[in-house]
């Protein structure tokens, strides 16, 4: 049972039960507020009837010409609320917004080790477009998959023809 609504600043005070998860990054405050100020429709939260935050998605639209696309910056669901279809719902919203913005595709980066998420994105129709080497810094650095799904505007599905060679982070715009 879910309330879906735009993420608000005050949600940052109660997202701990979601953000303490090790795969979910807590960013600096201005990172969130910038997204809120710029792409509020891309920043949605799912809330339980008792007002607990169950998960949220944070995204943006960017790129020029045929590279105009929706991007998933963060997607996370609290451990207690997983396998309920919430992430799928949130991805749906982001795809809808991207459709309305006439994007060509939606993309995201995910750690190559994050099997659960990769599997989920595949089930949602995303493909691995390319590998980005050492995208995540850490010890050791980790590669990312750049995953994509075409929107209806990309009639010929040009945006989702996988690259055969991996790229470096500096080649990703």
């Amino acid at each position: 049972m879910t309330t879906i609504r735009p993420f608000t600043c005050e949600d940052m005070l109660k997202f701990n039960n979601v953000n303490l998860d090790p795969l979910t990054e807590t960013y600096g405050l201005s990172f969130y507020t910038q997204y809120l100020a710029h792409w509020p429709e891309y920043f949605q939260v799912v809330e339980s009837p008792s007002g607990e935050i169950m998960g949220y998605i944070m995204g943006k639209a960017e790129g020029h010409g045929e590279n105009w696309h929706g991007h998933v910056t963060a997607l996370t669901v609290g451990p207690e609320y997983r396998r309920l279809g919430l992430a799928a719902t949130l991805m749906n919203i982001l795809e809808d917004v991207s459709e309305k913005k006439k994007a060509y595709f939606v993309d995201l980066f995910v750690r190559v080790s994050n099997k659960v998420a990769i599997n989920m994105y595949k089930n949602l129709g995303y493909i691995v477009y390319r590998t980005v080497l050492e995208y995540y810094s850490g010890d050791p650095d980790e590669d990312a998959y750049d995953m994509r799904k075409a929107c209806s505007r990309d009639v010929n599905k040009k945006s989702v023809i996988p690259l055969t060679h991996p790229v470096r982070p500096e080649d990703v715009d």
Partner: protein
Amino acid sequence: MAVRPQHVHDGGIVERRLRPIYDWLDIGNNKKALQEAEKVLKKSPTLQAARALKALALFRLGKGLEAQVVLDALADEKPSDDTTLQAMTISYRESQQLHKVCMLYENAVKSEPANEELHSHLFMSYVRVGDYRSQQRAAMALYKFAPKNPYYFWAVMSIVLQAKTSEDNTKRGILLALAQRMVDNFISENKMEAEQEARLYIMILELQEKWEDILKFIESPLYSQLVPGSTAQASIPYLKKLGQWKRLNVVCKELLWDNQDRWDYYVPYFDSVFYLMKENEEDSDSSIDNTAEKCHEFICQLVESMSSGRTLRGPYLARLELWKRLAVDGDPTSLIGNGLALCVQYLRVFANKPCAVPDLRPYLGMIPQKEREEKCREFLTCLGFDENSEPESADDIQRHISCLAAWRLVAAPLSSTGALELAATLRGHYMRCLQKGLVTSNITEFCAADHYGILAAHHYFYAGVEQQSSAPIVEALCLLELVLHHSPANFHAKLLLVKLYHLLGNAVAADSIYQRLEVKHIQLVSLGWLHCARLAPACLASRALQLLADTRAFLKHHGKDSVEHLTYAYKYGTFEKLVELAGWAARLEGCGWGAAAARDQALLAQLAGPPALLHQPSRLPALPTDNRDLNVIVNYEPPQFQDDNLKARTFDQEVSYLRLKDALVSAIALCIELADSRPVEEKKGHYEQLNTCVEAFSTAMEKCRQLYAERERISISAPFPSRIIAFVNSPVPYRELYATMLRLVGELAINRTTAAHDACDAVARLLPKAQLQLQDEIAVKGDPVWSMRDRLESLSNYLEFIGIITFLLGVCNELFSPASAKKSKKKTNHSPDEIKTSELLNKLNNTVQTSIAFLENILDEWPKYEANIDEILAKLSLDDKYQSPVENKLKTGRDDMLNDVRNILKRKSKYLKSLLQ
């Protein structure tokens, strides 16, 4: 913040010359940037952009005065090129002179009135200072020669903000009508373009409470064109406002058919049904649900319609919600059946999901306590389990856990023996899962079986509290460390460990786990209560200072950033967020914990920091805001223990404590001001202020002693009882001690010698008694480890006093024999009064040193953590290489803490000795 203007790519000679300066600034090497700027200026000394960048580098190097000179000269020249202006803007911004940016662009616009960019910068400069009227003017000017929608709506928004902040109702009305007319005109001219413009229009209508008009607008083709596919949902709040319950009913039902899991549709649906029920109108329209029966029927239809695919929680929870609402004034049993049975049914369907229990929580309280407790085992056994079942699959383990947790949430609380037995059983389950490979966690995900350990820890905690005994807590710690060892991602285990290590007064051990939570940024605020606030009372001053500094740095940084975010909101036309962001900035600015952190830091620095002047924090917020997340630790106590006032009450205590500390900090700051070398007559003002401050402190102490006499119950999820309770109820007379000591400084400063002598003498006589009172307060009664936390807190209060009295003795010394006089080495003849002052100060100094020696003795005798850890570990029957860290953490945590305190005391002693004349 990047300094470089975004679109200066003319490739010109100037750009090329400036590039290295930007590069150095970008990477934070301001010294090199300065050098580079000087180099450029040698060739072209008048180049404005280079001078502006030089000023910025100077500012960042802390050379504010020099920078200001450069800036002022530049401002007089009224520059208008973008590069110069932007660099100057950043300098002004970083030195908090935002008003000057307005002037800068006002001049620039005058010299280049047709430059759109300059106008837009001028607008933003007004945004940063919150000058809404000027914003409006600038936006309209901009729109006049660049008729673009955003500019027009900037003007509209500026008018709305004037209205929102206007206290005069007539004026407010006029402004809102104006804003509305402006948008109306746009609508009639077919000029609306963006969703956010539509939202701003709704905001304007909302502020005028024109609900009908909003509804009309939402239902218009224009709205569906701007915000496709959201008309029905958007109309809900306004149908409610207008009391159009029938329409609301129809709209929600339609939405629910397609979205059976949407709580935000169920709530207004129920609202409509319950209003229509009250109206009790005979209605032939069968499509409207105006009775409980029809409502129930509708929910049943939703349940039935979910034939294929995922089972949604929505319709099931909706039935519980219906029950709950009907139960408010009646018994819905005949209609929908027994409430408890419904809850059990819910559990039966969803027990395999970890959300089952959190989902049920709000509804368990509606079952009468007696019935709940009598039939509690139905929750446990509804899927064929009992407390001894040994499920073998991950799914069944989750089911078992859900049943166990639901059972504990409704059952009567156990006696301590009962709790210990159950805890042992649950621990057994965890151990069994571990041995059978059913603990399937990895680095990033934890697993269901962990929850046996978590639930066990909760029961150990209950038993510990009940028996006032540390042994069960140590059992919980050992078990939780084991859980964490196998499930490093389990933050529930981490949170409990932090909490329980603190419960036993071991902040160092708690810190070892806290670091693994990777708390940062905003979490420093929302979770500050959990750990940072507990460090000082656990006598870990040095670590407390670090974390307090982090917290303050975060808040300070945000304070600077927050106006920038407002400019983004204009830039992207997100007007709704603009209001939200402004509210958020104000909320954080008034953060109660932030204010407390500033004062704690100032006071604690007197004790444990390097010698430095006291930093007077900015003024107390008038209404401090509560930004704590108190839901982060999950609680398994039954509903009757739910304390709905907890958040408000504990915050109230924190605010009282904050005010006490604020009075102390202010008084100390006044003492410092009084210690300068002005003639006595000029100090009278500060002297009076100090007396008022001390008076306020004394009164507040007394008032708080009456208010907070009761001991708070300890709960696993709530903050520990506020520090104010131990402080004001202490047998050590802190009120007299602080007040008299502060008065001493005041009297000395204005040469009221007799009064000063009296005060000095009084403190010296109070201290030896205070020592004994402290000794009594921290004497071991009962289990020494259980009471460790309380005793450390008492000790910390005394230590903080020692820190402050030592500091104030330094101030007295400065007053009595200023460092400047000492240096001149002139022999001065002392009057008998002066000789007496010196004697008395020396005596007090020696008394404080005796007190420190006394504390050192206490530390030498400080009890150890002597729990039977070996025995406990044997129960965990660990055969592999795992070595429980608990024993070592408790031991070294204690030793590290004691050493920290010893070092501090040593430093204080040394300093005091240096003051002796």
